[in-house]
């Protein structure tokens, strides 16, 4: 579906009356269903703010964000919490798993919040554990597993509600290159096989090269856009690096 998510002329200000910072400056774009979109930009360019706004973590100062026909900027707190529960999945750099629950229980909790019987929850949980290749560590606590495994668990948890949009904030930031590659391949698999819509914020060109489209932000505005189309990933990576070098952006570690 085209224009699955529509961001219309949004602005976000921080600070007090005397000292205002404009983090997002009249930004508009749309995401189609089944797209894997990357957001890149230097520190302070507004990429995490944009993700927070799309994730309903933060509210816009002006403008609208539509998920199909729902304007999330007009929803109440309780309605937002329902919206998040049924439509969004989150993956963060620091995994954000609950340390008192096992890997399996972290996923089960998210499923329990969705409702449904024990049998259905168990089945979905097993399917997700299998999909993310973490069945073997299902009984372990987050502090007992590696960063890559923890992030895959976060990914499984994010998929628990069959989300309209999967939001990932620097998901490979705390991972080594091998784990990063595994996770990104998982993302690609989810996107291509299950048709998941993914929006990933990253400053790492290597991670961004797995996306189908990249929006480059600068001072809260989109200043460039790259579309992978049918180009090989390595070629796309070079294009990203070219854009970054042109803008003096951050150079990646993984080339």
């Amino acid at each position: 579906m085209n224009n699955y998510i529509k961001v219309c002329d949004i602005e976000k200000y921080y600070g007090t009356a005397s000292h205002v910072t404009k983090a997002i400056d009249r930004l508009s774009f749309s995401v189609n269903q089944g797209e894997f979109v990357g957001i890149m930009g230097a520190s302070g360019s507004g990429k995490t703010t944009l993700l927070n706004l799309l994730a309903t973590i933060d509210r816009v100062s002006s403008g609208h964000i539509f998920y199909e026909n729902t304007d999330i900027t007009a929803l109440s707190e309780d309605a937002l919490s329902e919206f998040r529960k049924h439509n969004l999945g989150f993956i963060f750099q620091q995994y954000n798993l609950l340390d008192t629950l096992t890997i399996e229980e972290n996923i089960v909790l998210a499923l329990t919040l969705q409702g449904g019987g024990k049998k259905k929850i168990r089945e979905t949980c097993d399917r997700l554990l299998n999909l993310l290749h973490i069945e073997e560590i299902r009984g372990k606590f987050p502090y007992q597993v590696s960063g890559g495994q923890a992030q895959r668990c976060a990914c499984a948890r994010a998929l628990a509600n069959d989300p309209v949009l999967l939001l990932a904030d620097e998901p490979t930031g705390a991972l080594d290159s091998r784990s990063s590659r595994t996770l990104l391949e998982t993302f690609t698999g989810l996107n291509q096989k299950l048709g998941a819509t993914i929006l990933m914020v990253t400053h790492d060109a290597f991670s961004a090269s797995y996306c189908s489209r990249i929006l480059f932000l600068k001072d809260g505005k989109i200043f460039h856009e790259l579309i992978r189309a049918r180009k090989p990933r390595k070629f796309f990576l070079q294009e990203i690096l070219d854009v970054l070098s042109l803008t003096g952006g951050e150079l990646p570690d993984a080339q």
Partner: protein
Amino acid sequence: MLSKLAFRNMKRSARDYLVYLLTMSLISALMYTFNSLLFQNEAGKYYDAEDMLEVLVVLATVFIVWITAWLIGYMVRFMMGKRSREFGIYLLLGMKKGTIAKLYLQENILLGSFSLLLGMGFGILLQQILMAILFSMLRMTYHLHIALHPGTVIMTLLCYGCCFIVSLFRCRRKFKKMNIHDLLEAERRNEQIGEKHETLKQFLMPLSILFLFLFWALFGVLSNDIQICLFLIGLVLTIYLFYIGLSARIICYIRKGGKRIYRGQNLFLLRQFSGKIRTMQFTLGTLTALFTLALMGSSIALMFSAWQNSLLEYKFPFDILLYSPDPTDDFQDEIQFLEKRTEIQDLFPYRIYTDGGNRVNAWMLTHLQAWGTMFQNPDGTPDMDKIRQKLENESVYCTYDTYMGLSDYNTLRAMLGYEEINLSDTEYALQIKLRLEKEVRSVGDDLKLADADGSLSLSCGGIYTDPFSQDGHNGGDYLIVVPDQVLARMYPYYAELALDINGPAPLTLREELNELRYDKINDTMIGGTDISPALKGNRCYGSDTILVFNAVNEVRENLRSSLTYMLAALMIPLFYIGLVFLCVAVTVLSVQQLSDSARCRYHYDILSRLGVKESGIHRLILRQLAACYLCPALLAVLISGKMMLFAGKLFVFATGVPVSPGSFFLKSTALFFGIYLVYFAVTFISFCRNVSR
């Protein structure tokens, strides 16, 4: 699933905040123990002070509930702050705020119930210990009787529940206000330290120190309520502003590049210390106030304890001593009654005499420190109008001087097992309370009394301070002993009966005597027609203050345990408050330190990479913790020290307890630091473990 999560979270909180859990268990144990005094106090029924103990325990409970609610509220907010990111995740997963609040409530109720159960178990044992101590103080036998009393359990549950409801209700409101963005960003915000106006703020420290100097210099001489109120307001402000000033002072010192920051790890230590004070300056002020109250509570309790240990025996030397305002009373009814109720070994009815003058009373009122120059003319001579007014309107001393014949005196001394004394025809002896001995040494030079002929030729032949029941029976404070022939020109003032009995007195003997003699004493004392007006004013209490106990019928065994019970009624709530305040305050301090240990791990890791050895890191942790622990404790010692030294002096002066005025405060400080040290050691060990984990 949510219940499972709540249970797991509770387990984690119990592990992370073990000190809090233990303190809550201790508080519930203390609550159970002291509440049992309201329901399971088998000794109470025998004593008049039963109601007093109950009222004071209830009053103490109100303070305890209040301070415990504060601790729970503080901890609930503190844990919430530390777990803000986790709550953010719950929100992201789609949990509603109400559900999160319910989850957190569940966790806290579980944690509270766990510590309550633990505490109640310990409380049942502690209650037995308290009862055993109370019974042994009362010289009664206590048989261990371990059982849960429904009244005590319900009261403890109510108190404990109250603390939780108050604090958790407030936390529910906090949940309503939170939003995901702030929760996820909270940790980062916590690390931001604002340093503004430090140059100005640093002057708060010398100002606070100056006020403390003034406090030490002027506390005893404050004369009116306004001055005292102003001083107390100043003191509260000082407690809070001191920490702002101290932190700013350290920061300014570091900025200036002071000499000491270049020694060892001082720079790191000073930065850590100033940061800690800055983030918890208000809490530190409150902790100082709690420490001050704890020290004061235990010091005052120790004062009463000292009185009980040293003066209770002194106050009642006779087995039984009965007063009658009628000097012709032969005590026949009483003797017949006592023959039935006890086994009398020896008895001696006698009279106290007076010459109708108040030469000795006037000497006392102009020479004892208690009165200062209140009854003196500007030239130092006695102001007889004022003295007469005092004697007629108040009962410190009898209206006229009190005398006793030498033979009666020696008979009574023999009953008490003291040596006989001798007096020549020109001598009198002064029998006085021990506490006044030093003040009346000049009596020999100053006070001449009339002999048998009425001429002022009797001089002091000796001062005796043996226990002699001088709170209204054998005079108030003093008794003049004269050769028997001098009594010929005096008239009997009131009558006394002293008895020596075999074995202990029955538990209710004094009450029975009070009942038997009620009409007789009251009719005679209140407007009895058969008594000469000259004999009125023959009842007095002496100059003791703070603890005054005057009984017409003295039965030593009964009074001793009655007074012990009354003192216990004062001491127990004071110790109760002191102990709980101390534990609450030191728990907050420990939890604050331990919660930082995870973050400090990185600091110490860096130091270790910079070449600091493990032993050096442990020393550094010790210094860091010691500074944070000592700061509020020392300030509290400084403040309460002055007040308690002053109160101790007053107490010793007013009651005559033969101990140094500073001893109460020293002992309570030792007790305080004993408990403090336990918490410090637990925190230090846990901190080191967390850092090296």
